[in-house]
């Protein structure tokens, strides 16, 4: 355990000293403050908290997370890594797990330090906005879901960094993979796992209670909303197959009002993000083990 902790602490120190992490932290805090203030007077608590999570789920922070994940075992660092650490009595998997854990700690630490106080303020402050019932379970579950998505992003970036060796190339490939992920998941009827859908279902999850589970869910969406969902899917497929887009309806529901996924299952989402994260880490370990330094 001593080598693991040594590498973990060393990498953590490097990360905390890096300008990327410092600037990211400040920008994330600033954005959270702006989001909080902009929805202070009118928006209900659940959509307000959900809006704080959107930058972590959809854009822009996944870019920073992926850059952080790609970095440690690519490019010019490899030689220094080999000379400095891997020629010592430490197993490769120990090294890789330690740097992965350090990156995950920085990403989740930044996320929690920025988001948790903002969520507390949104929940506890007296605001002129209409009352909303947000549960503690819902808040913890929502934050855990976002943390899991971030863990998947770090692990995917790790895998790409190990496979492609060049940091810039790995980041570009990741962006090309991550951007269309929502469309791809919708196409395969896996929209429950798409980050956009996930951010839209967060208000539902935030209002959910631990004991009653599904019984306490808010009333199902209207027929109009179901029709809207069907129409969107049909339009997407129609556009993909070269057809014309359907005419847009007169009123479009708000981003968090779509209630698109009433069959939201926390277990499914946890598995849907957890298993690929572990698989990516496992593949990164195998690729790194097989690789010449």
């Amino acid at each position, binding site marked *: 355990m*001593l*080598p693991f*902790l*040594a*590498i973990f602490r*060393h990498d953590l120190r*490097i990360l905390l*000293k890096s300008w990327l992490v410092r600037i990211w932290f400040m920008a994330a805090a600033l954005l959270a403050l702006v989001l909080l203030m902009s929805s202070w007077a009118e928006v209900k608590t659940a959509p307000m908290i959900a809006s704080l999570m959107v930058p972590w789920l959809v854009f822009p922070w996944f870019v920073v997370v992926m850059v952080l994940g790609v970095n440690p075992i690519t490019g010019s660092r490899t*030689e*220094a890594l*080999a*000379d*400095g*650490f*891997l*020629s*010592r*009595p*430490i*197993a*490769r*998997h120990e090294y890789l797990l330690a740097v992965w854990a350090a990156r995950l700690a920085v990403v989740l630490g930044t996320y929690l330090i920025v988001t948790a106080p903002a969520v507390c303020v949104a929940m506890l402050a007296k605001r002129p906005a209409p009352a909303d019932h947000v549960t503690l379970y819902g808040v913890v579950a929502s934050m855990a879901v976002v943390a899991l998505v971030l863990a998947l992003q770090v692990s995917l970036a790790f895998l790409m960094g190990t496979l492609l060796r060049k940091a810039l190339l790995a980041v570009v490939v990741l962006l090309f993979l991550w951007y269309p992920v929502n469309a791809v998941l919708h196409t395969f009827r896996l929209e429950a796992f798409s980050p956009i859908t996930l951010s839209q279902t967060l208000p539902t999850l935030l209002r959910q209670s631990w004991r009653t589970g599904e019984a306490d869910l808010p009333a199902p969406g209207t027929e109009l909303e179901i029709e809207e969902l069907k129409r969107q899917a049909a339009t997407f497929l129609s556009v993909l197959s070269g057809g014309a887009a359907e005419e847009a309806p007169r009123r479009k529901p708000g981003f968090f009002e779509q209630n698109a996924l009433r069959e939201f299952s926390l277990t499914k989402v946890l598995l849907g993000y957890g298993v690929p994260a572990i698989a990516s880490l496992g593949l990164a370990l195998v690729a790194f*083990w*097989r690789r*010449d*330094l």
Partner: protein
Amino acid sequence: MDLAIRTEHLTKIFNNRNVAVNDMSLEVPRGAVFGLLGPNGAGKTTTFRILLGLQRATAGRAEVFGIPCGPNAVEVRRMIGYLPTHPQLPGHLRPIEYLDLLGQLCRIPKEIRKPRLVSLLRAVGLLGQTDQPIETLSTGETTRLGIAASLVADPPLLVWDEPTAGLDPAARRFTLDLIRELGKSRTVVVSTHILSDIDQVCDHVGVMHEGRMIFSGPMQDMKRRLRRDDFLLEVGGQDREVQRLAAQMNAVEGVDVQVRGTNTLLVRLPQERSQAALLAELLKMVDAAGLPLAAIHSGLHETENAYLQLLQEDQSHGFQRFDLRPRRADAPVPGDLPP
């Protein structure tokens, strides 16, 4: 024989294109100071990196103290203190922080680690630089820190890759003295293409060329390969007098004397006659000519000559170097001296 390093038919081909190590068999006896010689690109560094598990062998096997090498051979790396050429160390750390980190990687308890770090820094003369980041250290200081890093775990085998490269004369002297000192208590393998370094500190030598081990054995065996029938005499006096002396010496049967540079005579003696008697006769001539004798050199640059001779021989063998016969593990390496 108790071996520190043993490789059998070790081969490394990068991307199915570049042959770095070619069917190399090597045995380094425990306790030896082994010099690995070879021109740039001969495969020395690749061999070291295979031993450390940083690279995988394409074929063949390598063992350190009987343990197979590989990426996860932590036990092997525990026994090796590695110094890379121009070590790339984490520049933001201070020397003591870096050594402490390595001590933790080597699983050394704090009670042993901390005192050892200080004594190592003192031993390599870096106590005055403990508060400076590594990136501000000079090349010599970085190499000395690399040396200290290789000794953190007190390993029984030191593998130093061109430890004197880029060092000033004082730092080079320091490093060579250290190798000599450390060689008394452990096995040391040093790669270099500076032949005088090998000459000064090594008792065993291996010569690599184009990825192959073309000679491996005691230093004396390598030197014995040379014809030892030439001497250099440095004498005083005018050029004219030196020329006259050379002419007198050439009159002795079988002796060939040439004037080289200023006041230096290259004397070649016939192998079939007593070299001591002939040399005595020639020295009497110097005395009779009234010229002061400044120095006598025997077999000058003999290691260099032996090394170059080995490379030339290897190249001249041409297609004979190709060998399809299955070899026993204990069979001599091509280029070895007959027993």
